[in-house]
């Protein structure tokens, strides 16, 4: 039967692929084994007497031996010293807002209706919310529950203190971290940047050391979480035996858009309250209890291209209201940025089999036939888990298509979008917490975190799991993980 033939054909192809992958990825082993076998046979054949006479014929004296030993020791030391220090993720904590911050769809729509006179923008926001992929349980800060919202500086600071201090307190509980042990502090919050900075606020609250190295990153968008991790990693290379505290958050209070421009209304509908605190360390003794080790961070910035630079742009509209406009080309630009990032990260993480296929297809496109489609490497061979920034349903759909991922791989991202909304730079940590809460994180698993942000930037981080994570994890998902995954409908009827 034709179907039988096709089926058996595809099964055969699968085995061919597997065979090819095994051959290429274990090439060196497969080459080395016969060589070692031959050498061993030869040695056995020669016998001990012959070997001893071979040794004497080299005429080595003490000086030669000492110099060789010295050389070996010297090379070995240089090698060990020049290796990068391993960076361990000891633990992290995600902020879970209280039920008093909950915003159901109906309440959001009612507030929008009461605040805005513009019928069209109300209807537009209803349509956005219906298709957003958010659930009825997302959170907005207390100031946004007022009609109209109350975006004062005091309210913004209050939100910052609430989310950041709660996340750090949770992290301290989980790790036993002492304030005097924090050597490096990196805080990223894109849209709220008071004086003194949020990092100063943390230093003040927790009475951190006066020689702490603190950094406050603002304006860097939703991918700033991975930029902070990169900065902390670089600092940990320079400072031995240190702990780094990284805090990623986005403060919603000051950024409510009060106008009616459609491209600026999206953030109102999607952005929600959240924060994450991460403890990184390069201390040897932390390796025993650390959850992950940081393997790679790859950053790609497309800002040199004008279109990419302007695609997420904060400006004032005609009425003077400040908002963040998202251009219609956002998805295309995100796809481009992702391709650039993949091109860099591919060789670092993909097994040789995929790299060869990609290389040959690339050569073929250049030399043989320009119409061949570029080979999309199978990243599922390189990673067990994917954390895609929950920027919106469209972003996750686009990446799922581009990377050819199954729905199980993007489940963490979709469910985080449903439960917590778009919490900006901290969303990657909520997604990681989801995977852990589901009990899927095993020792040796590799995780790929991908973040997108204004600029336009695409940043990736690769982690390797050092120990299997047991449930329950005491994380933000504990009280509701049994309900997940939920089926998120395409359009929710409001």
């Amino acid at each position: 039967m034709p179907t039988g033939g096709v089926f058996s054909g595809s099964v055969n192809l699968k085995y061919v692929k597997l065979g090819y992958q095994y051959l290429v990825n274990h090439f060196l082993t497969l080459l080395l084994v016969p060589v070692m076998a031959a050498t061993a046979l030869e040695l056995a054949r020669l016998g001990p007497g012959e070997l001893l006479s071979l040794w004497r014929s080299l005429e080595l004296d003490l000086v030669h031996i000492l110099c060789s030993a010295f050389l070996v020791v010297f090379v070995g030391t240089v090698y060990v010293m020049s290796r990068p220090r391993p960076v361990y993720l000891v633990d992290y904590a995600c902020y879970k807002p209280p039920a008093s911050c909950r915003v159901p769809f109906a309440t959001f729509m009612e507030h929008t209706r009461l605040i805005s006179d513009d019928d069209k923008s109300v209807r537009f926001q209803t349509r956005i919310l219906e298709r957003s992929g958010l659930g009825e349980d997302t959170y907005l800060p207390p100031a946004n529950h007022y009609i109209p919202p109350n975006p004062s500086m005091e309210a913004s600071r209050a939100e910052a203190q609430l989310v950041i201090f709660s996340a750090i307190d949770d992290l301290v509980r989980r790790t036993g971290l002492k304030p005097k042990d924090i050597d490096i502090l990196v805080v990223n919050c894109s849209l709220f940047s008071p004086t003194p900075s949020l990092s100063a606020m943390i230093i003040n609250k927790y009475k951190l050391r006066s020689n702490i190295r603190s950094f406050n990153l603002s304006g860097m968008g939703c991918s700033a979480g991975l930029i902070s991790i990169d900065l902390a990693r670089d600092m940990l290379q320079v400072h031995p035996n240190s702990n780094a505290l990284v805090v990623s958050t986005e403060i919603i209070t000051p950024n409510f858009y009060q106008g009616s421009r459609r491209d600026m209304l999206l953030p109102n509908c999607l952005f929600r309250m959240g924060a994450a605190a991460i403890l990184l360390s390069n201390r040897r003794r932390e390796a025993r209890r650390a959850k992950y080790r940081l393997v790679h961070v790859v950053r790609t910035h497309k800002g040199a291209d004008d279109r990419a630079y302007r695609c997420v742009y904060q400006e004032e509209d005609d009425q003077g209201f400040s908002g963040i406009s998202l251009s219609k080309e956002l998805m295309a630009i995100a796809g481009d940025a992702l391709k650039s990032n993949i091109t860099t990260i591919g060789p670092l993480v993909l097994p040789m089999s995929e790299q060869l296929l990609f290389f040959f297809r690339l050569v073929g496109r250049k030399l043989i036939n320009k119409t061949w489609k570029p080979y999309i490497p199978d990243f599922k061979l390189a990673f067990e888990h994917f954390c895609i920034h929950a920027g919106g349903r469209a972003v996750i759909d686009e990446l799922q298509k581009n990377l050819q991922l199954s729905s199980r791989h993007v489940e963490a991202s979709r469910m985080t979008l449903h439960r917590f909304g778009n919490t900006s730079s901290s969303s990657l940590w909520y997604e990681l917490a989801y995977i852990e809460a589901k009990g899927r994180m095993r020792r040796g698993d590799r995780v790929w975190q991908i973040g997108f942000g204004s600029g336009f930037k695409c940043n990736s981080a690769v982690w390797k799991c050092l120990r299997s994570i047991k449930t329950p994890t005491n994380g933000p998902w504990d009280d509701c993980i049994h309900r997940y995954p939920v089926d998120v409908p395409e359009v929710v009827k409001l």
Partner: protein
Amino acid sequence: MVFEQEQEEVAPGAVHGHRLSTVVPSSVTGEVDYALADADLAFKLHYLRGVYYYPPGDVARGLATKVLKDPMFPWLDDYFPVAGRVRRAEQEAAGGEGDAGAPRRPYIKCNDCGVRIVEAKCDRDMDEWLRDDAPDRLRQLCYDKVLGPELFFSPLLYVQITIFKCGGLALGFSWAHLIGDVPSAVTCFNKWAQILSGKKPEDTVLTPLNKPVQGQSPEGVTAPRSVKQVGPIEDHWLVSAGRDMACYSFHVSDEVLKKLQQQQKGRHDAAAGTFELVSALAWQTVAKIRGGDVDTVTVVRTGAAARSGKSLANEMTVGYVASAGSSPAKTDVAELAALLAKNVVDETAAVAAFQGDVLVYGGANLTLVDMEQVDVYALEIKGLRPVHVEYGMDGVGEEGAVLVQPDADGRGRLVTVVLPRDEIDSLRAALGTALQVA
């Protein structure tokens, strides 16, 4: 000094600085619908307005808005229909009864939309405010909104928190009568206070589900005598009376009660309780100021026996009493009280079954409302008992209403009348002598 940025012109002593926010149930209710009973729909044009006054002091100072709001989230988990919004049922399929223009049956969509909280300030001392006895002070302390014109976005409950200059606190509840009667409302508010004080309240009973009554009275039948037919009402659920209505409260001390009770001694049918006596006094006074013509009164009572135990229901009995022949202005209070005790014609079922839109309070007749068995002073916040509670009503028709509730120490009675504003002064004058003990 002139402040350039002043947003509103604040009349001295008025309540100002209103800030609105919303409180929702703490967990997802799920898209359930709460069906409204026929009795519920009969009361849909009325709104309960209740104010609780708390004295200044350390406890009141510690009652920040957050302290008052936080217990509301779990409270609304139990009372999730109160956090819903009114919707109309989908159009029936072609071939259903009634023409396409007939209004579809309303129900509550439990979409967790929430309850509106209003924060306000008043630059006067609470004592001064209470002593002033201004008519319609209730309206300033309870957010003055009704259901409609956009039913989709109209909350069923508003809670206003007003802080006085001295630190005293007033809590004003605006409750749509549609969702429950006076005892339901008061029990609901008391449960919130229990959660605030850390106690676990009784379970909320929302079953059995409401079903439309089978034996509906056919079209074309006139309304029962207790109520007045209005409408048809579209989406703005308020019938504005031709005249401006105002609430006014006065206290009937227990000495006055004793005097009234003594007056009915010697009558062979001395079966009248305090409600009958007090409301008879009010009936007589209103008849006097109107110069007669208050021959029939509607009586709405909380019969404890008649309650089914459901936490949200409209189960007050509705009936009417006709004064036999003589004008109430000239009849003894004791005589009127006896009529109220014995001669009530019960029309509860008829009112529920009636298909059109009706005004129960103040529609056809002056309406006397019995709130004696409702424990309004039980709304203790962290052990702080209210010093004064008054309940009024909005959406009352021109005939007016009289609400009789217990007072602070339980021995006297607090009476709130809802009358056209120009009748309030005459009422005050007429009552002046009646309320004296001598």
